Structure formats: structure tokens, C-alpha cells
């Protein structure tokens, strides 16, 4: 067996995407903080004319954190992890090297197009699939290039058996490809009408209830294949690697993977409970959501058990802290989601702030922390520098954790209060509250959420600073560490 240290891995594309992850993360979260405060202080809508209103900025927030921060985090880790677990360097294939670089450039162009178009209000309104057809085409091209990179690297691999992380990266690629194509079936109206109106405008192939079904089949599984599957790919590599511990159980990995693949796609109906989609589809959505708890928890438990007996590491190594808390929040949100998918609970929770609460348990606690930990692990190895400051990481960890707790506790209270007030009746059986009453009570919670978000953003900026100082002023390291990342106090 060839020792991996003999291969000279080429991290140039991984580095580029790492920069993108950090910059787009800051942009996306900054907008998140702004829209959070807009809900508490509506005057903040007037900062930039029509371009600064909540409606224009909200999709910009979701899309820049998802397709900016998250997706470039996925690409960055792929270009790092892929080579190492397949035991082959990108440098061995000029084709794959060139492909990776074009992939990055195209990605930036599409990001720019997305930002401009959303600010101008060019959107199809579908959540997480707002883009008009010209951008869709760009996204498909980017995705195909990533697929070529995955299968190209697999094609020239030295390691015969695919590591767990690679299973999850492959699933991400296939899942998103299928979902995105079907949800974006649209007819460009300029061409179909013989030259009228804006050339970029299109109309959905599906109408009404059908459109909703396809959208939430997509939307739910975008959560699966963007917020979950690739992040599991990351934790299966970075946690054992950073801790030096073997994975607790292959069987658990196996069952969790295939279970997740099998169950996830059925659960989309939970976004449409009590809507006009057929009752049986809704019931299926509820059922499969509950069954989904276990394949989700399987991966998280596998990770926690991998750390069995390693309390010392948890205490000493901030990266391990990030990853253990990420697993915890993964368990938290994959129990919260299923419970919100039970019909009677959804009757209360749907449309309320409890849903954004659930969303950010997952995105801040699980996705955010895991990507941060992954980049921190990769940085000393990609740049051959010691991490700049452990202290900074420790404070970052606690600041961000406080931020998450403020975010979700305020949104839980806000959401449940709102849901109960909408339903409440007075002694005569009339509705007890006008709508605006239910808005006004939320003011303190919206403020707390804004503060929580601000803390999380502050922590993220500390992380960016640490990253920057590491590559510019970190101590050079001679040899790559086997496990725990080197860091200065």
C-alpha cells in the first residue's frame, strides 16, 4: 500500500472555494442579520430604496448562504477530501485540474448573476429555486462539471473501495441534479410568444397544486441533498481524521446511508400539510418524516460513538467541539423536523416563526459549525501553516453557540405564541386577536433573534480573521500532522 504522504495533493481549487465559502458566508449572514432586524425595526427597509426591502433581501439571504456559503463549502471540501480518500492527486490529471479551475470561475459568474438578478427582483418565487432560466442553465453546467470532477477522480483512483464520504458526495451530486432539473421546468415566454416582453422571463410548466407538489418535493430534498447529505460527507471525514479515531461502526454507516436515501424523498409532503394536495400524500409525508429520525440519528450517533473515551480531545480541541456540537444540533433538528411533521403539530407550527427556528437549528448549528470545522482542519494542511489562534477559536465557539441558543429559543417562543394566538377564540367563539396583535407581541423575540444572529455573524468574522492571519502570519509547519490540527495558543 502506498502511503498517502507520498502523494502530492493539489489543493489550488479547494483553496479558491474556501475563500468563496468565507466571503459568501459573511455576505449571506450579514443580509440575514439585516432582515432579522427589519422584522423588529421596519424602518430598516428604507435603507436602499426598493432594493433594500425585506422581500428583495430574503431570497438573497437564503440563496447566498445556500448556494454561496454552503455549496462552495461542499465544493471546497470535495476538492480536498476527494483526492485524499481516493488516494490520487488532481495534479496527475491536467484535465481535472483545468476542469476544477473553470468550475470555480463559472461558479463566480453565476453567483454574480444571481445577486444582480435577485436585487432587481428577477425571480420565479419558488423557494431555493428562484432563478430564471438563463441562470438555471449556468447552474446545470456548473453541476455537470462537478460531476465530471467526481467521477473523473474516481476513475483514476488508487483506493479501490469508496470511503463513506464519497458515497455521500455522489448522492449529493445525483440528488440535486435530478431535483433541480424537474423543479425548473419552465417555458421562456419571450420565445414562446414570438418576441414579447423580457427575454429572461419564464412560466412554470406546472400549475397550482401540482406546482406546489413538485416544488416541495424539490424544496424538502434540497434540505436533504444540500443541507444534510454533503455535510455528513464532511463529518465522516473530518471528525475521525481530526481525532485520529476509527469510525465506530461500518454497519451503522451502511444502514444510515441507505436508509436516508430510501426514506428522505418520501417526506416532502410535510411541507404541504392541510393544503390542497391529496390527503394520502400528506399522510405519507408525516409518516416518512418520523421514520427518517433513525437514519439521520444513525450518522450522528456513529460520530458521537467514534469519540467514545475521548473526552480529553473534546475539552482541548476546539475543532472537535465544533463537530460534536454540530452532531448534537443535527440530532436536534432531525427530531424537531419530524415532530413538526406530525399533522396536529404542523397545524400549529406551519406558517409561524417556529419553522425559521427549526431551519436555523440545522443551518447554524449543524451546517455552519461543520463547515467551519472542516475549513479549520483543511487550512493548516493546505497552506502548511499552524492555525493562528486557539483562543480566538474558543471564544468564537462560545459566542456562536450563544447566538444559536438566542436564535432558536426566541423563534420557538415566537412561533408557538403566534400559532396559538391565530387559533385563540374569546368566550363568544370569535377570534380573539386581530392579525396585527399577533405581529406586535413578537417584537421582543424578533429583537432577540437579531442579537443572536449578530453574535453568530461576529463569531464568523472572528473565524475569517483567524483564517486570514493563519495564511498570512501563521507559523510554517514542516510536516503534515496525522490528526489534531496544530494551533498556536
Amino acid at each position, binding site marked *: 500500500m502506498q502511503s498517502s504522504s507520498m502523494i502530492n495533493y493539489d489543493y489550488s481549487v479547494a483553496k479558491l472555494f474556501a475563500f468563496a465559502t468565507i466571503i459568501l458566508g459573511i455576505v449571506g449572514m450579514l443580509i440575514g442579520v439585516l432582515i432579522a432586524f427589519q422584522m423588529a425595526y*421596519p424602518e430598516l427597509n428604507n435603507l436602499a430604496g426598493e432594493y433594500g426591502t425585506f422581500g428583495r433581501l430574503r431570497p438573497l439571504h437564503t440563496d447566498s448562504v445556500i448556494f454561496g456559503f454552503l455549496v462552495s463549502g461542499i465544493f471546497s471540501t470535495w476538492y480536498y477530501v476527494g483526492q485524499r480518500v481516493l488516494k490520487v492527486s488532481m495534479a496527475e490529471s491536467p484535465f481535472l485540474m483545468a476542469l476544477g479551475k473553470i468550475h470555480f470561475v463559472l461558479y463566480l459568474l453565476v453567483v454574480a448573476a444571481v445577486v444582480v438578478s435577485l436585487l432587481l427582483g428577477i425571480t*420565479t418565487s419558488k423557494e431555493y429555486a428562484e432563478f430564471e432560466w438563463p441562470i438555471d442553465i449556468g447552474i446545470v453546467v456548473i453541476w455537470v462539471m462537478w460531476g465530471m470532477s467526481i467521477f473523473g477522480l474516481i476513475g483514476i483512483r488508487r483506493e479501490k473501495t469508496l470511503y463513506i464520504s464519497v458515497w455521500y458526495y455522489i448522492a449529493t451530486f*445525483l440528488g440535486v441534479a435530478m431535483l433541480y432539473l424537474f423543479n425548473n421546468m419552465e417555458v421562456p415566454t419571450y420565445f414562446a410568444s414570438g418576441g414579447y416582453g423580457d427575454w429572461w*422571463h419564464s412560466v412554470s410548466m406546472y*400549475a397550482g397544486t401540482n406546482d406546489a407538489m413538485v*416544488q416541495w418535493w424539490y424544496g424538502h430534498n434540497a434540505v436533504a441533498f444540500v443541507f444534510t447529505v454533503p455535510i455528513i460527507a464532511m463529518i465522516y471525514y473530518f471528525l475521525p481524521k481530526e481525532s485520529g479515531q476509527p469510525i465506530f461502526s461500518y454497519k451503522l454507516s451502511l444502514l444510515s446511508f441507505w436508509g436516508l*436515501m430510501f426514506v428522505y424523498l*418520501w417526506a416532502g409532503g410535510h411541507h404541504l400539510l392541510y393544503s*390542497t394536495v391529496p390527503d394520502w400524500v400528506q399522510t405519507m409525508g408525516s409518516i416518512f418524516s418520523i421514520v427518517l429520525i433513525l437514519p439521520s440519528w444513525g450518522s450522528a450517533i456513529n460520530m458521537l460513538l467514534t469519540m467514545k473515551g475521548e473526552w480529553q480531545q473534546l475539552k482541548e480541541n476546539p475543532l472537535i467541539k465544533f463537530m460534536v456540537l454540530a452532531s448534537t444540533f443535527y440530532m436536534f433538528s432531525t427530531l424537531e423536523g419530524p415532530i413538526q411533521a406530525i399533522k396536529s403539530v404542523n397545524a400549529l407550527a406551519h406558517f409561524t416563526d417556529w419553522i425559521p427556528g427549526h431551519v436555523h437549528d440545522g443551518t447554524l448549528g449543524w451546517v455552519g459549525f461543520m463547515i467551519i470545522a472542516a475549513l479549520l482542519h483543511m487550512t493548516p494542511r493546505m497552506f502548511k501553516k499552524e492555525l493562528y489562534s486557539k483562543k480566538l477559536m474558543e471564544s468564537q465557539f462560545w459566542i456562536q453557540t450563544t447566538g444559536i441558543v438566542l436564535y432558536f429559543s426566541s423563534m420557538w417562543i415566537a412561533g408557538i405564541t403566534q400559532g396559538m394566538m391565530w387559533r385563540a377564540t374569546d368566550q363568544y367563539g370569535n377570534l380573539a386577536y386581530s392579525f396585527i396583535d399577533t*405581529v406586535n407581541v413578537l417584537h421582543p423575540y424578533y429583537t432577540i433573534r437579531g442579537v443572536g444572529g449578530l453574535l453568530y455573524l461576529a463569531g464568523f468574522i472572528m473565524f475569517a480573521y483567524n483564517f486570514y492571519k493563519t495564511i498570512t502570519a501563521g507559523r510554517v509547519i514542516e510536516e503534515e500532522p496525522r490528526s489534531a490540527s496544530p494551533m498556536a495558543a
Partner: protein
Amino acid sequence: MFHWLEKNPFFFAVGVFLVIAYAGLITILPDFMNSARPVVGTKPYTVLQLAGRHAYIKDSCNACHSQLIRPFKSETDRYGMYSLSGEYAYDRPFLWGSKRTGPDLMRVGNYRTTDWLENHMLDPASVVPGSIMPKYGHMFNNKANIETAYAEAVTVKKVFNVPYDEKDMPKLGSFEEAQKLALEEAKEIVDNMKNPTVKEAYAKGEIKEIVALIAYLNSLK
């Protein structure tokens, strides 16, 4: 078997794809035709209403407003009759939303009127103290995009057989005719409004975004 798959990426990928692909077919296809059938009396949007719908989408009103009344007494008391699948037959895209920061708008045309909407869109807090909805002054200056709305109507008529130009259904005709119809339709709304910019523009044959938006909101019943 699984270990074999892990050594054979092609079959592994095929396996994953099969496992994830069919769930969509089984849940979406069986009721596809049923869900597409319009309820009796449902009509496609006129070009003016469609332009308003585009303004609604452009400013992502659906980020705060749902258009889906669930069958609960608390909702039907507040918003009116629960939603039926066939009422959405001409909604491309659907605009159910997933968050009610503001109230549901599925039937807002039943209980809000042009003049109220004008006041509210210009400055929500002036009519509803404490409102956190943004002001939409820019809609009083931007022009409604009638041409793109016309293009969309022509497209859905051609491609999806949406019954424009049929008996008792909205008329399209040529673009010039459609423009004229939109102007006529806008008249009643402009008459019920007070904003001078909107009125002056209308006198010059121009329709502002807000007029189209109100036409759309009024049509939500």
C-alpha cells in the same frame, strides 16, 4: 452486496439513483390530472392582473404572505372559505408561501378595497399602527410590465391550452388590443385612487405597477 457496490462506483451511483428516484413518481403522478382541473367559475388572470402578479413576485410578497387557507375554523373565520385545489388551476407558479409574517391573502379581494390598498401599500403603518410591512412607494413610480404579462398569457394559451379568448373568458387578442384592454380595466382602479403621480401617468396612457398590483389583489377572492 453493499461492499461490492462500494468497489464499483458506476453501479453504486445507479443504485443510489434508483433508490431516490421513484418516490417522486409515486407521490406526484397519481393525482396529477385531478389536481390540474379548474373549479367551475375559475378564470385565468387578465393581462393587467397578471402584470400585478408579476409585481407581487418581483417584490417577494410571498416571503411574508401565504395564499392558502387551511381547513380550520380559526382560518376560515379570519380569511374566508378554505382553499380548493381547482382554484389554483391557472396559478403558474403557485404562490402558497411558507411563512405568515403577514396575513393570508388568498381572498383579500373580499375584504379590502382599492382605496384601502392604496393607503396601505404606500405606508402600511399609517392604516395599521405597528405594522412591520415595508412601504412600497416605488410601486407608485415603476411602470407595470404589461408586455411581459401579455407574453406570459400568450405562452400559457399556446402551450398549456389556458382558455383565453374563449366565451366568458378574458380576451387577449393582439398586443395592441391587449394593451387597450388593460388600460380600460385599469381605469376603475385609477378612479378609486388618490395618488396624483398614478393619475397623471394614467392620463398619458401609462399604467403604474401599483395599479396592476391592486388589480391582482382585488381579483383574489
